[in-house]
């Protein structure tokens, strides 16, 4: 279980934190090397410097603020290091047991996702303030996000650091193209992750679906290279792009006892004169999405209007017939009548 190398590394980092925060003066690298016994493991100065660089990175990741500076007389060109104890400490906050319970639930949102580590560490820090959580009102509630797309981590980090990136993006029609983007925000919308940002080649804001990003995300500029619009509401941007136009009413003929999902959302359902069918009126905002769903019901649901929805369903049915061995023969006069309207 206990890896001796990992333990030694933890000891080294802890001694480093203590040494840098106990000192009132700036410590040079050489002084640090002497102050932390585990740096004896390094046979050469080069090996020590490499290890020290990695350790500094680890401390930054944990939120430990490392100040650099020095008194010119003593140091010449060399930098000194120390930890400012006021910048180190969590401000005095007093969470109530109920608030801590909500925070605990908030950290579990990431349990299956890429920020799981930071979320857990954050909670451990807050719990060290000494309040016990009261979770009784949150029993059984588990909001979760997933970040299975490989592009999530580099894009989140780029948006956080305001660093421009490039990646290969496959459009909905399948054609891949290289894009250069200033990431503004990453948004989970209806279970999918999107990037909102400024597309440099197109000179305009764009929305990208993370699952369509292929291969590596590479940075093409320094952190802090651009500003994010102050009034940006990334969720509305994604919502407006992904979502549909204003809804229109569709009139459907639906077999009794069928089309339950459509009936549930219907504006009205009336028994039509046609034996065994009802007339269902439904708000449709995305014709293609509605046609997908309606085509799936086959003969149980027939679109009476609008014409573009009717044509979209017919196009699918004819396509399915032809692709599955039905030839291209199209039965029915009504079908032929709308052929001109189909895209």
């Amino acid at each position: 279980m206990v890896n001796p190398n990992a333990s030694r590394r933890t000891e080294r980092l802890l001694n480093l934190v203590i040494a840098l925060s106990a000192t009132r003066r700036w410590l040079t690298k050489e002084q640090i090397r002497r102050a932390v016994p585990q740096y004896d493991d390094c046979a050469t100065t080069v090996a020590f410097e490499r290890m020290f660089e990695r350790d500094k990175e680890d401390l930054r990741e944990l939120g430990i603020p490392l100040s650099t500076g020095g008194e010119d007389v003593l140091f010449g060109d060399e930098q000194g290091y120390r930890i400012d104890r006021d910048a180190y400490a969590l401000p005095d906050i007093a969470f109530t047991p109920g608030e801590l319970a909500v925070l605990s639930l908030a950290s579990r949102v990431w349990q299956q996702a890429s920020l799981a580590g930071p979320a857990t560490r954050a909670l451990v820090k807050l719990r060290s303030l000494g309040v016990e959580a009261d979770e009784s009102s949150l029993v059984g509630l588990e909001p979760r996000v997933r970040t299975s797309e490989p592009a999530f981590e580099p894009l989140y980090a780029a948006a956080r650091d305001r660093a421009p990136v490039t990646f290969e993006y496959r459009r909905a029609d399948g054609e891949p193209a290289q894009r250069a983007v200033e990431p503004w925000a990453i948004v989970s919308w209806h279970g999918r992750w999107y990037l909102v940002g400024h597309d440099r080649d197109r000179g305009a804001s764009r929305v990208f679906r993370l699952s369509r990003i292929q291969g590596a995300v590479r940075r093409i500029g320094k952190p802090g290279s651009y500003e994010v619009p102050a009034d940006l509401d990334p969720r509305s941007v994604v919502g407006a792009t992904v979502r549909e136009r204003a809804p229109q009413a569709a009139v459907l003929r639906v077999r009794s006892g069928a089309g339950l999902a459509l009936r549930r959302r219907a504006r009205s359902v009336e028994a039509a004169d046609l034996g065994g069918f009802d007339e269902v009126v439904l708000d449709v905002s995305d014709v293609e999405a509605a046609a997908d769903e309606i085509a799936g019901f086959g003969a149980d649901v027939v679109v009476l209007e609008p014409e573009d929805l009717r044509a979209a369903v017919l196009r699918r049915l004819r396509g399915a017939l032809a692709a599955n061995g039905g030839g291209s023969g199209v039965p029915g006069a009504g079908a032929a009548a709308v052929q001109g309207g189909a895209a």
Partner: protein
Amino acid sequence: MSGRASTERLSRLLAMVPYLLRHPGLPLAEAAAHFEIGEDELVRDLELLFVCGTPGHLPDDLIEAEWESGKVYIGNAEAIDRPLRLAVDEAVALLVGLRTLAEVPGLHDRDALDGALAKLSAAAGDAARAAQSLAVDVRVDDTDPGAAEQILATCRAALREHRRLRLRYLVPSRDESTEREVDPMRLLTVSGRWYLEGWCHRSEGVRLFRLDRIEAAEVLDADGTPPAQAVSRDLAEDLFRPSPDDVVVTLDLARQARWVVEYYPTESVEPAPPGEWAPAELRVRLRAADTRWVRRLLLRLGDGARVVDPPGLAESVKDAAHAALVAYGG
């Protein structure tokens, strides 16, 4: 990766010292429970603290740690006696998590949520800005959000009170509405959708119910404690377990239907063999509990997909499309 493990542990140690300084003489078991680790792990942490200290590392420089009596005492740790502030990613994770929760309908403790958000934003400082770069939308998506929130609230009440639920549940793949009694286990969101997990008395197994397909929910007087054999699914695994009764179907997908492999779990995906069906780009094998679902999928895909196997399914898609076209014509 020992790197990740050692920074996690360092983070815990830096949280542990201030906590133990504020709770001198805390029983070992309680301290371990607080940090959600085992007692032996806590002892290993204390052993590590015990050999660390200020430069010089003479006995007087080292952290004092005492636990032989079963109670934990810490001393001589002034350099790290205050809790460490939150790192940027840590603050982002919690702030975005809280904002996500703020959208959960019927979450009781609104005051606690607002309070936590305000205090955390203040404590996070600059990191609060970074939290703007990440947003999660879990809002219930339904044409009737009021009804959806009502269902969620009913399920939460049943969970809290350990009572059984009666559900009317829509099964779209069969275009059927079903009645069932369910002992609720938990409410979760996966990929932006809410699910109720519970022991279903009708199928005598653990089932996931999509909340937007629950047509009606009622809390019953009956006790709703799930039987001992009801075990929650591991969310790290795929939620939708294959069943031995599943049918495996083989489809050819044209370019416009490639999205199918992103949406549904597949058994295999490979380039379509050339020369069999001109538009085909991918040949995929899908597992389906019900071939009616596959028939629906093929109807919506239109000329973007065809059934390769089983042949009877291709026949049934063709018949369904033909019947529908007749309905339009007549």
